[in-house]
């Protein structure tokens, strides 16, 4: 895990940015923000599931 710290940290920052960006659009968020956040969360969830099933990230 430690050898892949760079890309993992970058992706984690991307995840945080996505969440912050989504909520920055306001209470009635536009559709593109919702779709973008869904995509990011789905990919992140897939990686987390892979991590726990396979014992590591596919890197």
């Amino acid at each position, binding site marked *: 895990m430690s050898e892949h710290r760079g890309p993992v940290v970058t992706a984690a920052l991307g995840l945080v940015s996505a969440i912050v960006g989504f909520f*920055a659009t306001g209470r009635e968020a536009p559709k593109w923000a919702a779709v*973008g956040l869904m995509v*990011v969360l789905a990919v992140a969830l897939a990686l987390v599931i892979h991590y726990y099933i396979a014992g590591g990230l596919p890197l």
Partner: protein
Amino acid sequence: MKVTLAWIVGHLSLVVIAVLGILLLAGGLVHSCEKDQWRDQYIDALNAAARADSTRIVYQDSLTTIYERYAMILTAKELADLELEEERRLRRKQKLDLIALHELYTSARGQIVGLTEAYGDRDTTRIHIAGRDGPIAMEARLSIASPLVQPQASVQYTMSAVIEDLRIRIRQLEDPETGRVLLQATSPHPQVTGVRLEGAVAIERTRLGQEDGPSRLKWLLLGGAVVEGARLLLGR
């Protein structure tokens, strides 16, 4: 480092998260700034309207410009931070009203060469339209403040005109005392939108049936939409 399919998929996933995240952050911040900008402009328009007793508005280009401003002001208004659910519900309905006005505008657009100017005071608005068959001047007495304030918009007009377009529902009445014919028209989908753009056009009986230019009542109703837009811009 062995490049396998899993390696590629894994790295692609991280790249997608990172890139999309940055884009979302940038887009969200820009969206937030635009929203504040429109809200400021709307508040400025309200303040300006409060200071002015009468206002002159000149439309130089096409009606599209006016309509777009109208739409954007509505959006800005919608974006205002209002907590009451009743007001939010009203705004959703006003979106539908706007669609009806847009339909009206779209269907009448082919008949209009250009809208030259509209001006007036609190009670009366005069609109000059350059029609295909010559200029049309109309004077509208409005019984509404704005569709934002009042759910049902009722507009009454007095003008000489000949009606031949039937897309708008038209009712014909005759005043036996004056011998004048009163034509009442309503916009296409009042039952759906709640909009009642009513034009009452009093015309001389002798002119009824003359080919005096098509769809003039539509122009009137369109003028009503424009007037509403103007009043909305003025915050009245």
